[in-house]
């Protein structure tokens, strides 16, 4: 009977060895596919770093001699025709191999930079939420709090925006200061407002009034100071929402509930599907001036700025359990500051799940970037990335199949390697992994 074997297997593979970096590395090495992934990825990274040295041709240069408008196939298809271009020429007569090498540079850099950005934002917010989050959450209290928050947002936004609008309309103090002044003044205003609000007892009408006035003032300040936007209601509302949300939360929950603000924002971003939102944002940027505005940095900012919620949620969950450990308590008892406990004591212990998630996210971002570029909303030609090289491959798929095959193969192999590494890391770093 086929079922007998698995039933007789031990329930959990007992790990007698003490968890440490050394044993983790030992276990990782046992994972053959992950080791293969490391080798493949190392080669890719090496090629990407030294593309300028290794590439046989200029990635953007057209080979006028061999490119007469006819397809030039790879050497292993026709050695006579290839003219030294090992993987042939692309649809514009550029050396495919060199473009692949420089494409590796762009694709990998975009992925790694976006993931670093995502990690910084996600870890910071997740750590804050997890460390200050409440242990047991009463569902009733929670939904009441949520209702209070929404009401609060509505009050501050509407009142702030319209008060600001009225003031600006009847007292048109259009200062048109620079962005620096705006930031300094807003921070100063916020500081004063907080000091005032702090001394008013919570949940009193006076507090509501003070906060509303402060929100309105902040919105008004922002609206008159932002260059080129004399009466920008949207700026007022944005400031009002941010400000109102912040102060409103303090009102509704007290500072302990910073957890909820962060997790609500996380929920919102997790509920908006990533790919369409990315496309809309890159589309907006592309429309704002030329398509060239969609630089490498913009794409990193957009991808990294939108993909942090999953990290935040993970880090929060980890921190929620870590802060209850004895060593965290000991660190608190000795008198370490919260920030120090968060960064020096808890972060190293939260690194395992973060590392796994980050690895898998690099793979995801490589695919995301290639989809964006393929659809024409990512890296713009003539810059080579694996995705942008595929953008024009569909038109002459049959005559120049190599243009379509090789970039995609690079994506597949790299992403596969990273996924294997991620899987190996998960098994190696999780002391109670059941395979």
């Amino acid at each position, binding site marked *: 009977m086929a079922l007998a074997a698995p039933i007789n297997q031990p329930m959990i593979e007992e790990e007698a060895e003490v968890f440490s970096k050394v044993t983790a590395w030992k276990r990782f090495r046992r994972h053959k596919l992950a080791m293969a992934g490391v080798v493949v990825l190392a080669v890719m990274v090496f090629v990407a770093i030294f593309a300028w040295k290794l590439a046989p041709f200029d990635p953007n240069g057209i080979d006028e001699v061999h490119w007469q408008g006819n397809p030039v196939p790879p050497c292993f298809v026709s050695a006579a025709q290839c003219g030294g271009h090992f993987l042939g020429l692309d649809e514009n007569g550029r050396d495919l191999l060199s473009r692949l090498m420089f494409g590796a540079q762009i694709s990998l850099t975009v992925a790694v930079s976006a993931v670093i950005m995502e990690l910084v934002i996600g870890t910071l917010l997740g750590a804050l939420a997890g460390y200050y989050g409440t242990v047991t959450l009463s569902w009733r209290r929670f939904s009441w709090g949520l209702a209070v928050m929404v009401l609060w947002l509505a009050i501050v936004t509407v009142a702030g925006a319209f008060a600001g609008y009225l003031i600006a309309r009847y007292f048109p103090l259009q200062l048109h200061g620079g962005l620096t002044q705006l930031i300094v003044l807003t921070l100063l205003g916020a500081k004063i407002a907080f000091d005032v609000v702090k001394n008013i007892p919570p949940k009193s009408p006076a507090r509501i009034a003070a906060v509303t006035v402060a929100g309105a003032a902040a919105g008004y300040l922002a609206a008159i100071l932002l260059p080129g936007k004399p009466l920008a209601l949207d700026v007022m509302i944005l400031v009002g929402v941010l400000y109102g949300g912040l102060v409103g939360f303090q009102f509704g929950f007290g500072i302990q509930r910073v957890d909820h603000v962060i997790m609500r924002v996380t929920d919102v971003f997790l509920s*908006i599907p990533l790919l369409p939102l990315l496309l809309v944002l890159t589309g907006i940027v592309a429309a704002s001036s030329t398509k060239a505005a969609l630089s490498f940095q913009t794409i990193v900012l957009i991808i990294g700025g939108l993909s942090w919620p999953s990290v935040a949620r993970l880090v929060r969950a980890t921190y929620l359990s870590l802060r209850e450990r004895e060593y965290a308590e000991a660190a608190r008892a000795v008198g370490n500051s919260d920030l120090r406990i968060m960064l020096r004591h808890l972060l190293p212990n939260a690194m395992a799940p973060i590392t796994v998630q980050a690895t898998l996210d690099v793979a995801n971002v490589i695919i995301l970037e290639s989809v964006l570029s393929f659809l024409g909303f990512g890296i713009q030609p003539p810059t080579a990335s694996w995705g942008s090289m595929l953008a024009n491959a569909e038109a002459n798929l049959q005559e120049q199949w190599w243009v379509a095959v090789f970039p995609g193969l690079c994506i597949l192999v790299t992403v596969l390697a990273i996924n294997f590494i991620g899987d190996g890391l998960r098994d190696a770093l999780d002391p109670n992994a059941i395979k």
Partner: protein
Amino acid sequence: MRRTFQAVPLLLLISMILFLIIHNAPGGGLGPYLQNPHITPADIARLKHNLGLDKPLPVQYVTWLGQVLHGDFGYSTSNSEPVFNAIVERLPSTFLLMGTAYFIAIVIGVSAGLFAAVRPYTTWDYLITTFAFFGQSMPVFWLALMLQLALAVHGIPLPFGYLLQLPSAEISSSDTFSLSDRISHLILPATVLAFLNIALYSRFMRSSMLEVIRTDYMRTAAAKGLSFRTILFKHGLKNAMIPLVTVTALTLPALFGGAIVTESIFAWPGEGRLFITALGQEDIAILLGFLMINACLVVFFNLFADVVYAWLDPRVKYE
């Protein structure tokens, strides 16, 4: 019940953020008109007035919310059609594609996962697991290109895209309907769309089934002398499917987003194509409608997954 109420403020917040993002588009949704030299500033102003784009943003937001509640999601800025109509018109073809892909993914994914789970750590298991890794690492649009190439090289005449280029609303009533024609058009895009989910479901099914196989009640069933088939399907599969239901519900909205890529490659006249066209025309009303509906799907299916999970698994209770 509480969860349902909680979804309302969440959706409101989402709509607010989406609205802010989209209405900060530089062209203000009239990009293509601004670039057209034949359109005078007066025309633009009139257009703005007609579409209500000259009002302050909060007023626009409230108006839009009202439109959403009336079920028309505002009017397209490129052809003044109600957004809801434009979206509903293409729903049948997208649902056809999504439904087929979903069906393929569940059938293949579950059977592959089950097949691997009853013979763990054998060659078959490793093959299926490795395949699942490939599926997760595959850039979907490239898979579509490669399938196209392979079919072209071998001369298999599987058509690409929809044969009937009419609005999809007419498809069901069309007299040129033919099942074989429909299937031949459907098979490639549906397979490509399902690919990622096949991999996902098979991995999930495998681990879920492995966990169930190790439980006491499975041991008891085996000890009672029940047949292998009864144990596996009646005791095992039923329990192993519970977490899978959640996962399939959670990944369903992703199919909607994934349709953007698949539909644009296969020229499938569905929501994804609508989205890409609207993106090219900077039609903010349609973009907003698409994003909002997609976000609603996510929120709804999250809720749905929780409810179904609690209903299927009596051990889970929500306060």
